[in-house]
């Protein structure tokens, strides 16, 4: 259901599996005793992992959920137009909530690749996949209330695509022995296609859907 491989200008995305990466190779970048990993993963809903077994199980889960069609997990590697082609840049996945016709993207990139516009580059690819190929209506982005850097990033992201800040949801996600509050942002298919100047490419349905008057 999902493309096994996607190429962008500077990146190659391939399905995360034991064939695509060695467990120990990936674990090196996700290990709990790696200072960078702890910082990179601070606000993400998984890792860092204490042992390679944690990384292994995470890869196995990605394989299983790919087959189940409810999560598409990609390994991000440097492409030809980036230094060190083939080097590991990060991992990103798209969660599918089919009943709600919605998706959520979660991203991990390694520190050496921060601040270089790579995020936007492959995020657009995953949004195209979600809205154009999988025909979803809505992309959701959520972060814990205290994850200030992520909140700022999502705010910029929804603003640039005319999306919405939906609100702060109290007691939304159990984590670390407590229940966390979560900021929720959404971006509709119509908003995404309009702000990327491609509304014409969309199906007639989307083109004919008027902008909601108020909400």
């Amino acid at each position, binding site marked *: 259901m999902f493309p096994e491989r996607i190429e962008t200008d500077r990146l190659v995305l391939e399905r995360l599996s034991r064939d695509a990466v060695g467990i120990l190779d990936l674990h090196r970048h996700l290990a709990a005793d790696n200072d960078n990993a702890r910082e990179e993963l601070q606000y993400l809903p998984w890792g860092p992992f204490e042992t390679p077994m944690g990384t292994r199980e995470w890869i196995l889960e990605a394989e299983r959920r790919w087959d189940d069609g409810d999560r598409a997990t990609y390994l991000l590697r440097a492409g030809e137009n980036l230094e060190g082609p083939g080097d590991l840049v990060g991992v990103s996945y798209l969660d599918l909530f089919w009943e*709600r016709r919605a998706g959520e993207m979660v991203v991990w990139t390694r520190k050496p690749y921060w601040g270089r516009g790579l995020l936007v580059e492959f995020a657009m690819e995953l949004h195209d996949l979600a809205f154009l190929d999988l025909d979803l*209506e*809505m992309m959701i982005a959520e972060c814990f209330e205290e994850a200030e850097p992520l909140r700022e990033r999502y705010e910029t992201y929804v603003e640039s695509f005319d999306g*919405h800040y939906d*609100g702060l*949801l109290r007691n939304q996600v159990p984590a670390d022995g407590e*229940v966390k509050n979560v900021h*929720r942002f*959404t971006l509709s298919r119509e908003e995404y296609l309009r702000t990327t100047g491609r509304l014409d490419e969309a199906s007639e349905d989307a083109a004919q859907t008027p902008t909601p008057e108020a*909400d």
Partner: protein
Amino acid sequence: MFPAAIETNRLRLERFDHEHVDPFELYEVTTDPENETVWRYVPWEPYETVHDAAEYVDDAVERWEDAEAAEYVVRPRQGAAEAGGFAGVTLLDLDWDRRSGQLAIWLARPFWGRGYSAERATALLALAFDRLDLEVVEVTHNVENDTSRQAIEKYVERFGGRREGVLRNYVAYGDTVSDEVRYTISRDEWRANRPEDLGVELIDDPADGNDERRGGNR
């Protein structure tokens, strides 16, 4: 864990099981053309058959026994207009991992406009906070559902809760995906705003073992 009945000034909520709910009555009320507008914005719909209605009661019993949801049939109390009539169904849906509960209700058309929704909300909030020690109770309504909005805004404000926002594509029911306005009331807000005399009585069935706590005093 849940009280078998809850009484407010005008309402009696009774455990939604085969002793208190007749599937024929449930089927009849939900399929009554008079109630057609009731289903417009809620994740319920009329039952196709009496058998479906009976199965819904089975499901509610199971959810109750697994402590996943406290579900009640809403009836006006003795002495009130249409006493004992089938006014609707309400529940507190538990999400223990999140220490949260979600309120839901549908009321048959003749019982609209009487403030019943707020009255049973007070009853279920008392259950959620005073007995079940939840941290947050949440409630949502479809963005276009003005009737529910008015009822919910009033009791959320009364107990110091807040409107969280419009959550797009938040719930799926049937073939539709709904944008919902969500509100929450926290335990702290409840305690700060709860009047001493709430007018709510949680009534336990001794057979349920809910009075274990008091057992030591006997």
